[in-house]
């Protein structure tokens, strides 16, 4: 009976991010075709599956700005053998973390009550909405992260190099031009 090499099962998600890292993943263009011979997607914005089953690899974009982000991150950590923080926000908190020196109550009041052009405003309190955290955190503040792929976003070439190294069982190495913090 013919042995078929098992595909790596991969989940991705965007927490407090802008989906730019996912766009950069798609930006590997025609290389997606050979990549899909090697991997199959589990939970991901690309499959619209909301919950993550057991996976070999989890790619997480975005940092942690609310309680739901932490919940999803912990689910990914439970289910993924290898967890990767992708992009500036996942690794440093990034743009959302620029509010970290402000009081969260002041932020909400300014945005929903006192800000320019706000009329009859109120601070949303629907129980469906996840509560914001007082500070935005990088992923490694909460769970163990196995690899970090920096960039805002990491370039398609960096993502391609990283995934190829990982799929081949090598420690990912980003040389000059591929390792970037911006």
């Amino acid at each position, binding site marked *: 009976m013919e042995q078929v090499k098992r595909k790596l099962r991969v989940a991705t998600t965007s927490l407090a991010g802008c989906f730019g890292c996912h766009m950069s993943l798609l930006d590997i263009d025609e290389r997606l075709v050979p990549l899909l011979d090697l991997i199959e997607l589990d939970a991901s914005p690309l499959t619209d599956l909301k919950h993550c089953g057991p996976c070999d690899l989890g790619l997480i974009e975005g940092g942690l700005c609310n309680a739901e982000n932490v919940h999803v991150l912990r689910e990914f950590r439970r289910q993924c053998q290898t967890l990767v*923080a992708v992009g*500036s926000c996942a*690794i*440093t*908190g*990034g*743009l959302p*973390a*620029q509010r*970290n*020196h402000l009081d969260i109550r002041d932020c909400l009041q300014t945005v929903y009550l006192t800000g320019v052009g706000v009329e009859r405003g109120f601070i949303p309190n629907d129980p469906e909405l996840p509560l914001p955290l007082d*500070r935005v955190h*990088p992923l*490694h*503040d909460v769970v163990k*992260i196995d*690899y*970090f*792929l*920096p960039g*805002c976003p990491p370039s398609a070439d960096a993502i391609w190099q990283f995934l190829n190294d990982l799929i081949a069982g090598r420690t990912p*190495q*980003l040389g*000059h*031009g591929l*390792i*970037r*913090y*911006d």
Partner: protein
Amino acid sequence: MSDGARRTFALDGLEVPFEPGQTILQAALAAGHYVPHLCFHPEFRPHGSCRVCTVKVNGRTTASCTTPARDDDVVESRTEELDELRRNLIQFLFTEGNHFCPSCEQSGNCTLQAVGYELGVTTGHYNPLFPNRPVDASHPDVLLDFNRCILCELCVHASAEVDKKHVFALSGRGITKHLVVNAESGRLGDTPLAVYDKAMSVCPVGVIQRKGRGFAVPIGARTYDRASISAIAVPRREEV
């Protein structure tokens, strides 16, 4: 080499010649060997504060920017052990300040960033402190963004020794150490700093920014987009 004797030390097994009075870092760079470093500037007296240039000389760790080269010394630099310690120092600096590279005008020309790339630093590793450091925009031509300061003291020395203005100083100790402006108000607008001052051009990160222009060089054409810091630092410093 007035006495005719050729003075050399061994750097990672390679023979490095030196002139009397040269430090290990100066001699290494002059000979075309890159030793990662951050607060060293060829025009100013080295003071060994960042420790990124730490090497082992005959088995003992020391800052190569302040240690005089000596004949027949055995110096280790790019070992995995020392590079791992250097990565730790870079990670401390990234997590103690607010280094949000995507919005920084210095990105691509930043020494801290470039040394991070050189050493393969992909994460701050430690829990970031997110300190609250308001910027000083009081000067008509210059913006001071304290969030990015790594306390290298180059602006302090440049302003005191070259510009003779003493605009900057460091204050406090340990984790509370910070850059201050030498004016009664504490504001940059009340100092004689001018855009042509030496202090304007020595910051290795993005603290001292000229107003009225931003992101002047496109991504891809910036200093460390074109080549790694190890490739750039060595030929440029051959005259040292």
